[in-house]
């Protein structure tokens, strides 16, 4: 038997006579048509059902008190995120330190602050003055130097921010820790072998690599926080959700005002998602052989290709 197979002779056809016919997908067409009809129906309902009351919606969307409330929401989100993630880095560092006491402390913090519902925690902070009338700066268990009224130091906004930040820190701590764990042990060994000082190892070698794993969860958490700020309405703080309640309490137009808040939340989330894309792209340098194009770049190539045709 011969191991060399003779090639099957191909009937010589001139290539020009062959046409490529793409496979047909009738199921895909039917499904698309059904979905389009449903979407059209929904859009029609939005436009024609008077219950949505679009004039009221547009009247309030850019209204002064709504915009001011929006600013408070943004303030709470940003400050909560910054403080929360600073706390998170600290908690993760403690948890991964070699001191069993710091480890236990970090673990306990995360346990407690993940257990208590945010709304309950917020009410606790708002009532801090009931537990501790004044706060003192001084030697632990010793004499104090300076006394402050709790109510003056921690107003409703302070209580809200404190609650959000402490709650956020517990989650951020776990997110940061997951990121740090994802960095290969060999990276630390290489850094140690080069004699790079510890703080710089963390800042320059470990953290930038951990960011790849941290960012998607962190963005999730930030968007979550944006919406969690609506919970602080229980402390009567004029953020977005509280403000639209005030307005519909006055004029009774519940649905359009809820839509005002909803659309703002949706827009802000879109903004954060776009931000997330670009930040993730920045930290992907070196991790991918070539970076994927941005949507803008993709659009530009599509347009120039269309123009060339």
């Amino acid at each position: 038997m011969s191991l060399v197979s003779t090639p099957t002779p191909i009937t010589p056809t001139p290539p020009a006579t062959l046409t490529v016919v793409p496979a047909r997908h009738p199921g895909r067409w039917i499904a698309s048509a059904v979905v389009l009809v449903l979407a059209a129906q929904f859009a029609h309902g939005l436009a024609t059902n008077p219950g949505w009351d679009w004039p009221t919606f547009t009247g309030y969307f850019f209204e002064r008190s709504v915009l001011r409330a929006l600013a408070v929401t943004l303030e709470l989100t940003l400050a909560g995120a910054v403080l929360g993630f600073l706390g998170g880095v600290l908690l993760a560092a403690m948890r991964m330190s070699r001191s069993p006491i710091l480890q236990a402390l970090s673990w306990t913090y995360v346990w407690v602050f993940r257990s208590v519902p945010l709304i309950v925690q917020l009410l606790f902070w708002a009532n801090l003055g009931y537990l501790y009338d004044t706060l003192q700066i001084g030697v632990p268990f010793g004499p104090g130097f300076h006394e402050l009224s709790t109510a003056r130091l921690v107003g409703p906004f302070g209580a809200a921010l404190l609650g959000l930040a402490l709650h956020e820190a517990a989650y951020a701590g776990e997110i940061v820790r997951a990121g740090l764990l994802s960095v290969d042990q060999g990276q630390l060994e290489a850094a140690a072998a080069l004699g790079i000082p510890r703080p710089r190892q963390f800042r320059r070698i470990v953290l930038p690599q951990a960011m790849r794993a941290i960012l998607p969860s962190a963005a999730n958490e930030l968007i979550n926080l944006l919406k969690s700020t609506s919970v602080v309405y229980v402390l009567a703080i004029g953020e977005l959700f509280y403000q639209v309640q005030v307005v519909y309490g006055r004029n009774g137009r519940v649905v359009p005002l809820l839509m005002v808040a909803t659309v703002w939340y949706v827009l802000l989330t879109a903004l954060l998602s776009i931000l997330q894309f670009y930040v993730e792209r920045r930290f992907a340098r070196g991790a991918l052989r070539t970076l994927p194009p941005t949507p803008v770049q993709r659009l530009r190539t599509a347009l120039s290709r269309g123009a060339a045709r």
Partner: protein
Amino acid sequence: MTAMVEIRDVHKSFGAHEVLHGVDLTVPGGSVTVVLGPSGSGKSTLLRAINHLEKVDRGTITVDGELIGYRRVGDRLNELGERHILRQRARIGFVFQSFNLFPHLTALDNVAEAPVATGRRGRADARAYARTLLGRVGLADRADAYPRQLSGGQQQRVAIARALALDPALILFDEPTSALDPELVGEVLDVLRALAAAGTTMIVVTHEIGFAREVADTVVFLDAGRIVEQGPPEQVLDHPRHERTKAFLSKVLT
């Protein structure tokens, strides 16, 4: 020649498992020592003990006359603080089997990182020097590439340039070519040859017998945590005296 590395009666255990059973070794300055031995014999552990990535349980290691990891007070050895150890490590280059380049930094920044981090050079100076070193390993044109955009052989050459950036008195190589495709081994060994010719003190763990024969001043055969045999390559490689060396060589050479 004065001794660059002196290892005296070094013992090391992981838990109950003793990996190094009293190793003695002297490496003269400017010489090349190749360490051979079967997998698991403790070669990596010995190398990592020299720059204190592993703490030894007993015995002493000195590099260029300086006791590594400890300060001698009377007849006690007090362990040095982290910062002091990091400063000692900066004088000892280490090249890993798996390269361990920093993936988020370009080749140039990988090489320039340590001199800046240790305050040895300013940023611009370190980058200029890094360019020179990348030129020495034949990668002047890939300075701006990220590690993942380089082949294995190129990555290992960047890692060697990185180890050279602190002008170390000694460089340790832990199987520098074992993770490479066969056709890429040569380019890395060429760099090692050039370093040897320039008089760099090196300890190289490798299975490349040809390289050992050609470049080594001393070949050391380690087996089960003990140095079984050492001497010039023609003696250890061609006329091994111990059964275990013979058995190992016959396996590696076929």
